[in-house]
């Protein structure tokens, strides 16, 4: 009988996840408290959505926006109505918009380059239009932002525990007492007791069949498997918006790069979207019109859509980025190199003889994405606290703020750290806590099984069930069948693992199934359709009277309960 070794740790504040939110949380927490631990499933040097870069971040830049006649309140309203379709935690959104620039100045202090001599805007900032109605998205040199942040975290005195996948919470008397993780390389169970915990594990990225047919060829990090959301749900934390998806997520070049260089992104002076006949479907940024067009969502549309072109028999769609001056081209390459996945994409282009001047890049809609644009996760109060006292959530982990993305990560990470430090300052010694029995049993069972199912087969089954029952024909009956199928999978699979690397994947499967079931249950409960993020065949109409709300789902004494919250 093989046993799993358990290693004990303790600290005042434990940050789970080392992405943008987690690093910022650890940095602020370490300024306020000397006993901070950051746990990362990978390594904060290159982990998370911004692992290989981040070239843009939105915020309110008073010296530019006030000149263009846009107030902070207008920008918040623009985001709430045009990005989030009204259903948004406005108080947190306001905090994010108001403090994003402060956190950008922190990044500059840590060593990121945000000012450029050739810019004629105040402060030498490079600002672009992205998803708002005004020029509020900073273009900066963020290729190594994670290395810069990781270095700052190490300097701050916070301890980094890397290659540990947190998958359970410890609680005592209805409050947080710590977390439990599995060492992806050492194969040990790590119990980390803490007075306050900040969850920043981000999105749920491996639920739907990936467009190119390869499990790990997806737009956002495949290492993000909803570990935090699953752990919180099991511990009784209330999650909201879990039924929402971004469909179709975005258009990308076989998921090799984000956004594919289209004008709706932030880095493409020369970029235009065309159909197979060469007709322009999305115009260049500068052809869109005036500068600030506050009050209506800025649109790049020509009256046609990529999807419409495919259906009209004029596909496929391409991003053509061959136009522009040499400076425009150079600027674009600079931006691509600094955006996540960009360095790999440029390397691949060079290796395979591709050139933006000579080649257009074919685009396809990617598989649906959970969490970020759809904002599924724990409901948080104005201090980033979840429904479990002492447990906070930040960035894409938190629910209720669609499109908060990088600024959400930085600002909420900072805020959650301040809240956690206040709590840790008042609390007594960290409690012992309970909540790891199931995890240890799950691991032991797999370790003691020599013949069975490889995790890859379970992953394919999850892809099938989520894609078949939760995308095109969404309805109560389909969701019920999806639940049956995930229950069947959970009860029938006999996972095996040859080493900690494979056992980590088995634990990911457990979390993906947990998240899938939460999604199906909330899908059944919300009896309406709501924009692109939630379309039901059996309730095709939007129903604001009953459903203009966050739908909460939580586990209470072994039973699932739902609750509506006003946004």
């Amino acid at each position: 009988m093989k046993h799993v070794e358990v290693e004990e740790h303790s600290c005042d504040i434990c940050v789970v996840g080392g992405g943008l939110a987690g690093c910022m949380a650890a940095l602020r927490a370490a300024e306020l408290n000397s006993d901070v631990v950051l746990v990362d499933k990978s390594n904060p040097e290159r982990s998370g959505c911004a692992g290989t870069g981040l070239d843009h971040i939105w915020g309110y830049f008073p010296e530019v926006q006030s000149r263009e006649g846009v107030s902070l309140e207008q920008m918040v309203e623009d985001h709430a109505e045009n990005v989030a379709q009204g259903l948004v935690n406005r108080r947190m959104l306001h905090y994010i918009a108001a403090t994003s620039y402060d956190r950008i100045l922190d990044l500059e202090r840590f060593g990121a380059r945000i000012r450029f001599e050739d810019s004629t805007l105040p402060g030498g900032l490079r600002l672009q239009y992205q998803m708002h109605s005004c020029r509020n998205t900073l273009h900066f040199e963020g290729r190594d932002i994670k290395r810069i942040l990781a270095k700052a975290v190490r300097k701050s005195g916070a301890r980094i525990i890397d290659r540990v996948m947190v998958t359970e919470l410890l609680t005592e008397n209805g409050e947080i007492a710590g977390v439990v993780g599995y060492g992806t390389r050492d194969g040990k169970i790590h119990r980390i007791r803490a007075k306050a915990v900040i969850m920043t594990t981000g999105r749920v990225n491996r639920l739907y069949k990936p467009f190119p047919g390869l499990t790990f060829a997806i737009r956002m990090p495949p290492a993000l498997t909803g570990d935090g959301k699953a752990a919180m749900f099991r511990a009784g934390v209330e999650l909201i918006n879990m039924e929402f998806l971004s469909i179709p997520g975005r258009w990308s070049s076989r998921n090799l790069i984000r956004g594919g260089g289209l004008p709706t992104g932030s880095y493409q002076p020369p970029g235009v979207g065309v159909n197979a006949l060469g007709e322009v479907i999305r115009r260049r940024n500068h052809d869109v019109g005036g500068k600030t067009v506050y009050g209506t969502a800025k649109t790049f549309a020509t009256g046609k859509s990529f999807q419409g072109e495919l259906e009209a028999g004029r596909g496929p769609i391409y991003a053509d980025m061959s136009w522009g001056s040499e400076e425009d081209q150079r600027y674009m390459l600079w931006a691509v190199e600094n955006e996540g996945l960009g360095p790999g994409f440029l390397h691949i282009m060079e290796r395979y003889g591709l050139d933006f001047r000579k080649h257009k890049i074919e685009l396809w809609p990617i598989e649906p994405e959970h969490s970020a644009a759809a904002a599924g996760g724990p409901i948080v109060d104005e201090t980033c606290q979840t429904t479990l006292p002492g447990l906070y959530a930040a960035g894409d982990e938190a629910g209720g703020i669609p499109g908060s993305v990088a600024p959400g990560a930085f600002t909420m990470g900072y805020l959650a750290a301040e809240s956690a430090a206040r709590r840790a300052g008042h609390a007594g010694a960290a409690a012992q806590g309970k909540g790891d029995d199931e995890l240890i049993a799950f691991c032991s069972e797999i370790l003691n099984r020599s013949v069975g199912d490889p995790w890859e087969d379970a992953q394919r089954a999850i892809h099938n069930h989520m894609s078949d029952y939760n995308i095109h024909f969404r309805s109560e009956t389909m969701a019920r069948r999806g639940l049956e199928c995930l229950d069947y999978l959970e009860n029938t699979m006999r996972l095996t693992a040859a080493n900690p690397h494979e056992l980590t994947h088995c634990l990911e499967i457990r979390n993906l199934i947990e998240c899938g079931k939460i999604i199906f249950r909330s899908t059944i409960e919300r009896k309406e359709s709501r924009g692109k993020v939630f379309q039901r065949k059996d309730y095709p109409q939007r129903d604001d009277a009953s459903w203009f709300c966050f739908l909460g789902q939580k586990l209470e004494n072994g039973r699932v309960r739902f609750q509506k919250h006003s946004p």
Partner: protein
Amino acid sequence: MPPVIDKKLCNCCGICYDICPQDVFYFDRGRKEVPAIPYPQECWYCGACVVDCPKGAVSLDLPLPLHIVPSPALYGPPGPEEEEALWRAADFSRSIERDSTGGNPGGGNTASSGRKGEKES
């Protein structure tokens, strides 16, 4: 399948092993050997190992389903009659306003380009 390590260039420092978000590298006997790549199919093609390798020893090979089949571009460099559009592009996308600079929209009169140490065209 990605990634590929050039054994002649690799100095066995293990940075790729340390930073890979997908944990595709592996040392059998510690940092005295070229890392093994037991899980190439788990690569995310993010390029972290390519960027961070101090010896430039790592490159990415694409599996066949991810190849980008070449397709000729439609536009190319703009003609002289497009100067106005180039100005608007510089203003809109590169934060270079016409009134403040003079010169030409290609940036001939601007102080420097974005990348450090890069020469003017």
